[in-house]
Every structure is written in C-alpha cells, then in structure tokens.
C-alpha cells in the first residue's frame, strides 16, 4: 500500500518536470526532458529497491525517444527504456513459491498484465483498422505503425547515403531496435520450457503483430518481408562503403562540411550495425515461430483462429531467387549460422532434382548431414552440370562457401592443434574433415565442368580455410 502511494506521488513529481515543455523545442524544454529522464532513472533504476515506473512515465520516455530531435535526447531515452525493461520485465520466469510441489518444480511464467508496452493493447483484434499512426504521434505502435516504421527504414536504406542521413532516421532505427528488444523479451521466456507450448507462443506479442498484419487488407506481408531485407542489406552496404567515400575522408581531416553532422557520422556505423542485428533478430524470431507453429500444427494444437501464414523462409527464398542483387549482401550480413545454413540448403534443393531425404530431428546433428548431402550433389559431373545450368556458377560458389562458413560456426568443437599426436586416430571420424574434403572436391568438380571458371575471392577464402583445417588435422 505504502509503495503505491509513494509511486503515485513520485509520478506526479517526475511528470511535473515535463509539464511546461510538452511540445516546445527550446533549449529549456530539452533540459527539462533530460532532467525528466534522469529523475526516472534515479527513482526506478538506481536504488536497489527502486520504484517501478508508472505507465505514464514509460509512455513519456517512449515519446521522447520517438519525437526527440537530437541525439542528446534520443540516446538516453533509448538506454533508459531498455534498462527499465530489463529491471521490470513484463514477462518473466519465477520459481512458483505458492505451489506446494517440490523444489524441482518447473519455473512459472509470470505476466505483469498492467505493465506498459510500446504496442497497443488490442493488437490481436485485427478486424479493427485504425488510423493510429498519424493521430497518435509518439504513442504506442499497432501493427500498421510497425509496418510503417520498417517502410521508413527501408526508404532510408534504399536511397540514403550518409549525407542524407539525419538524426531522425537514426531515431527511427533506435525505435526499431527497442521494439525488437521488447518482442524478443516477450518471446524468450515463452520458449524456455522443455517442451514447446503453442498456447504460450500463440499469445506472444510477435505472433499478435503477425496475425494482425495477416488480417489486414491494407498491409501486405510479402512487401513487409521485402522491406525487412532491404533494410538489412541496404544498411550493411551503406556502412561498408562508409569510410571509403572521399567526401567523408576530407571532412574528417580539415574541411568543414555542410551536409554531414559529425555526431551523425560517428553514430551511424554503430546504430546502423545494431539495426542490422535487430532486423536479423526479427527474421530469426519469425522463422522460429513458424517452425513452432508447424510443429503444433502436426500435433494438432493449432486452431482455425491461428490462421494460415506463408512461412517466412519461403518468402525469403523467393526474394533471394528473384532478386539477384540482394543475394550477395544478404549472405554477407545475415550471420545467424543455423538459419543461414537452412536457407542456403533450401535454396540449393529448390534446384536439385532429387531433394535428399531429410530426417527431421530437433538436435543440431542433422545440419551436418544435410550440408554433406548438398555437397554430394557435386560429386558427379552430370549433376554438377545441371546445377550450374540452373543456378549459375557464381551463385553456386557463394552458396557453398557461405554454407561452409556457417557450418564452421555451428561446429563449435575445438579441433586438435597442430602436432597433437593423441588425436590423430580420430581424424577419419571427424565430420569436419569430411566436410572440408567434400568442399574442396565440389569446387574441383565445378572447375572440371566449367574450365573458364573464375574462383570468387570468397570461394578462395573458403577453400583456403578448408585446406588449412585439413592440414592442421592430418
């Protein structure tokens, strides 16, 4: 009781700091906003027994992140929101103290229903299409607002170079990163149980967003996926060329620059890179959700209300197949090894006449089997020829090399060091050795079929690595 009274009083005091500055853009108003953020920190984060922020306080911090005009405001509000979520999670696991069962009882999922969210409360009810986005500037997101945000980012990634990038686009990137943190924070505890529980996953925020997107007549899931890929690949490309642009080099030495704010220039690689990571997180979360849904489907746990959704991986494969330009950057930037390998293998299977029989097992060992399965497609000249005809020799090289790299990152087991005599006997059994050998022979067979083949530098690097691994282990 005492706590709640204190909380109300503190809310009033803290919000009073913002009173006069709601809409103004003066130095004073900014000072007030910073003082407000500091006050929330001091009340909720700093003390060991801090007071959870009220919904109004959270909403005000979020507003500052969304409408803030300077990095000085955007960065601390972004940080504070993440800290608040970490400290006062909306969904968490706790050992159920009320239950009478033994101490080995499973953890219980606790949902703080009244906790604030950056998403609107009625996400799941897709039927009501509201034009919230414009009316409610700085407020919580609904699914169409989320779509719009990604569209904005895609626009930035599509035609931006760092001259046109401004604080506003950095702000959108941070909003997106925060939303992803929320979606992930909501998803992870639901997945922590030993067995997959579709009823829990069905209620996850991400699933609600997706259902709402599906149900909407205006929004197109396919377009959204395309935008997601554009954001991820586009931002990556902006950054990798970032420093090499001569105009920037000049500004960094002496030249005054009119169009490049140094603070934005310093921030971009950091914030852009984290946005790429967040986008990758979104894609993997959806793919994992798709997988769980499929599993639940097979076990008969889904209902009609769950709807039908094209699995994301199929949409990604379509995009990669029909849009050559993004294949290479996608493979470069997307570095979740498990899903990357999965995507590449499915890509290859689309074109091989007889897809290898896969035994579905949930542990990682199937991945080994499948990569070597894919590599075996290149063991005979005829099959290699037909694949080259369908996919193109450069794309094949890229796919194989990236698949090999993903495989390396998945096989975490330490390889025996050079000259370690004890381990020599096991070499033949090591699946990695087999993969490396097959990798090299696949490239050799490509060259046998196409004598003029130019080995791409990425392919060379893969071969170099494979050869080094072999010589290290033999």
């Amino acid at each position, binding site marked *: 009781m005492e706590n709640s009274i204190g909380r109300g009083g503190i809310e009033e005091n803290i919000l009073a700091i913002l009173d006069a500055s709601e809409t103004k853009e003066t130095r004073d108003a900014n000072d007030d906003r910073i003082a407000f953020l500091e006050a929330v920190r001091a009340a909720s984060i700093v003390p060991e027994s801090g007071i959870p922020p009220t919904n109004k306080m959270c909403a005000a911090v979020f507003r500052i992140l969304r409408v803030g005009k300077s990095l000085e405001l955007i960065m601390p509000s972004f940080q504070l929101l993440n800290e608040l979520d970490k400290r006062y999670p909306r969904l968490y696991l706790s050992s159920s103290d009320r239950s009478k069962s033994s101490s080995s009882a499973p953890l219980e999922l606790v949902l703080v229903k009244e906790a604030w969210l950056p998403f609107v409360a009625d996400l799941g009810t897709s039927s009501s299409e509201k034009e919230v986005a414009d009316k409610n500037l700085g407020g919580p997101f609904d699914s169409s607002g989320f779509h719009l945000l990604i569209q904005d980012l895609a626009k930035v990634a599509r035609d931006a170079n760092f001259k046109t990038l401004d604080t506003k686009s950095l702000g959108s990137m941070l909003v997106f990163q925060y939303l992803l943190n929320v979606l992930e924070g909501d998803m992870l505890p639901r997945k922590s149980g030993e067995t997959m529980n579709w009823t829990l996953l069905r209620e996850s925020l991400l699933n609600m967003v997706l259902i709402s997107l599906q149900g909407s007549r205006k929004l197109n899931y396919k377009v959204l996926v395309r935008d997601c890929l554009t954001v991820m690949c586009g931002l990556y490309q902006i950054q990798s060329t970032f420093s090499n642009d001569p105009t920037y080099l000049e500004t960094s030495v*002496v030249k005054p620059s009119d169009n490049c704010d140094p*603070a934005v220039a310093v921030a971009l690689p950091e914030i852009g890179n984290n946005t790429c990571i967040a986008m990758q997180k979104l894609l993997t979360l959806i793919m994992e959700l798709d997988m769980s849904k499929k599993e639940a489907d097979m076990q008969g746990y889904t209902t009609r209300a769950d709807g039908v959704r094209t699995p994301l991986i199929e949409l990604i494969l379509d995009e990669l197949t029909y849009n050559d330009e993004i294949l290479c950057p996608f493979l470069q930037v997307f570095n979740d090894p498990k899903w990357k390998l999965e995507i590449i293998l499915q890509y290859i299977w689309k074109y091989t006449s007889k897809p290898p029989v896969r035994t579905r097992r949930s542990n990682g060992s199937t991945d080994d089997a499948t990569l070597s399965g894919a590599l075996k497609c290149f063991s005979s000249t005829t099959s290699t020829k037909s694949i080259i005809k369908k996919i193109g020799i450069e794309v094949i090289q890229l796919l194989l090399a990236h698949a090999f790299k993903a495989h390396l990152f998945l096989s975490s087991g330490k390889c025996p060091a050079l000259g370690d005599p004890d381990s020599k006997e096991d070499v033949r059994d090591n699946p990695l050795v087999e993969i490396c050998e097959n990798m090299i022979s696949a490239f050799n067979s490509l060259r046998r079929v196409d004598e003029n083949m130019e080995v791409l530098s990425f392919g060379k690097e893969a071969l170099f690595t494979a050869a080094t691994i072999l010589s290290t282990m033999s």
Partner: protein
Amino acid sequence: MDGSLDFEFEDPLLSSPVVTKKRKKVIGLDDLLSDYYKEKSKLVERESIQEKAKKAYNSDDDVNTKEASLSEVIDQCQNQMKEISGEEDMSMWGMRVFGNQKVPPPLAFPGLGSCALLQFFMKNELNSLFELDSDKGDLFLEGLLANGWLSKLAFICGHVEKSMAVWTFNLMLYSSKEELRTSACDFWCAILSSKDEPVLIDWLPSYLELKGALEIYGFEYKFSFNRDSLPAGSNCGGPPQNIRSWVRFVAACSHVRNKLSILSTSEAEELVEVIIFLFLDHQLHGLAVLLYECMQSLISYFTEKEWKNSCNKIAKSLACRVPRDLNCLRAVECISGYDTCSKQLRSSVAYQILLVCFDNKATDEEEIMRLLIAINVKEKGCDLFKMYIYLVLAENWLLVNQMLEHKPVINEMWGLYLRNCSCQISSTDLRSFASKVRNKASYLLQGTVTK
C-alpha cells in the same frame, strides 16, 4: 555574469519579455508579449483615431505605420533574445575532446606475406588455383579478415602469429575502411574472449599502444572548453571513426583480466577517466551505449579490494581536470551504472568536485555541508549558476549512494540546505538560474518527504 541580467533599472516593457523567456513557468512569455502588444495597439489605435480625425482620407498609410511599428518591436525583442541566449552558452555542456588528428602509422606490414599461415598453404596443391605468393598475400589476408574467416582459423590452429596480431591491431585502430577496422576489432574481441577454445597469441598490445592511438586521434589530455565546437558541422579535428573500435577493444581487454594481463590497475583507472571525457563530447552521443558498456567492463575489472582506492584516485584526478560548469555535472551523470561500484564512483566524483569547487576549504562532509548552508541565496550577488551546480553535485554525492541513511547529521543538513534553496528563492525571482535552483530543490525536498 553577475548583474548582466539585472534589468531592474531598464525599461520594464522592453526587458521583461526577454527575461521571462527562461522563466516560462512563472509568467508565460506569450502572456507578456500579448500584454505588451495590447498596450501598444491601444496606443496606436488612440493615435490613429486622432489622426483619422485630422486626415480621414489616408487610411492605407495608417495600416502601414501600424505594421511597421509592430515589426520594429518584434525585431527588437528577437535581437534581445539572441543577445541573452548568447550569454547563456554556459547552460550547455560540451567539450571538444578531440583536436587535430596526427598522421597514423603505416598499415602495411612488411613481413606479413611470409607468415606461417600463408606459407603453409603455398605448399598445398590447391595453390595452383590461387597463384598466391607472398606479394599478393596481404590482399588475400584482408579478405580473410573482412569476411570473418581469420578468427575461425585462429581457433582451429589455436594460435595467432605475431605478424598477424600486430597487423590486425593496427588495422583496427588506424584503417580508414570501415569494413577492415570493424572486422579487425571483431577478430580481436573474438580471440581475447574465446572461452572453450584457448588461443595462443604471440603478441599482445600494451596500454602504451592504446594511449598512443588516442594521441594520434587528436585526443587532448589537457582539455579545452570550446563553445565554438557546439554547432553542427564544425570543422577541424573531431573524433575519427576508429574510436568505436578503440572503445570496444578497451572493453574486451578489461573483461579478460583473469586470463591475460594487458592493463595494470593504474592504467585501467586512467582509462575510466578517458571514457568519462569521451562522454563530454557532443560528437560522440551516438556511442553512448558503447561507452556505457565499456565503462561497466572497466569498473568490473577492479577487484573489490582495489576499487576503494582506485575509485578515490579516479574521482580526485577527475575533479581537478573537469571544468567547473555544466560539464562537471555531465561527468557525474554519465556514470550511470547501477551496481554498487558505479554508484560509489558517481558519488565520490561528485563529492570530490564539490570539494574542489570550494577550493578544498572543507576537509570533511560536515564542513562542506556547512559551507553550502552558509550561502545566502537572497543576496543579490549570489551566483545562482554556481548554486545550481553545487545542488546537483550534492544530490549525486548524497543520494546515489544511500549515504544519508547512515549519517543523520548530514541528512539534517541536507534538508536544511534544500529548504534554503527552495524557500528563500521566490517564484518571481528573475535572476538567471533562480527558477532552476528552486525547482530542483523543491523536487528533491518532496522526495525526502515522501521517503
């Protein structure tokens, strides 16, 4: 700044709108302006009626005069506002931490092509495909690095040669290519923090290399408070992009203390100070999260035993170097971790700066409180800007660390000080920073009551 904002003897009509710009909470600027215009237009109306009586035929001219006089007044107001805000530069924090950059060392590494990793491969039959030789080796290695193969190779071999280590380290700190500096930094972070795959690294950088890099970036150990640097698009100097990798590397180094000793405690202390100074540069706002993480891992570098002493040393050294304006508040507030050590640091930094503010006249906590209480805020010459700084410093010193719970005397003095600031400054006080001090103090006072 004493007296510079004292408009008592000036024309109240002209000066008051300007002054209230900062005190909008007391009387809105709009209110005053509209009052003023009402008066003015009444006057103009009266005149125009008189004039109309004289020459009723020329009403167009009339409107023009009205407009002209109005716009004149607006111009005057705006000019005065500009003047005032110019004087108010001190209400911004911000330092130019980076001056002119120096020439970085050459990145080419002569012996790189003959490193064992490449030599080993050149004997391989596959090399017919590559036609790799020692000359082209550099370029090939860059590819291996940029595409993330190199760290995997390091784990597989369990070994990083000296030439490779030096080469990647220099790329990380000095390459102008984002791709290379980032992947070189990834490489180092990976090999330093590898858990289950121990990697033998033949060469480790020392603090001197890190410090040298800062000097090449133009980092100034003697700081200059530079107001000109505040507007966007300022030229000359500024941090190079490599500072990002530098910060990440420092964080990684301090994480692995139990495995590799790269930093000594006194070096880690210096680095904490450097990170705090990086927080003072507006150009580095975008790296706030990175800087925060780096500070956290630096602080966690110290053992509990070391920290007591190190925390004090850092605080004392910072207190002497930070300018005693809003920058010192920023320096305190950027220490934003909420673990015990961070809170200790924040509190001691605030305390030490407070001591320096009073020229070390006070030697203990009670004395400094006594000095604070003795300040008479009603006095016209009282510098309320300084008062504001003292207030925020004291808040951080006393509240962040929950120190008051164990010290009832200080607690009482703190309450008295807050009452001084909040009750003795009237809400109509027009001095600069009067409302800021007053609002802050009453906010804090309410906090002590609700507790």
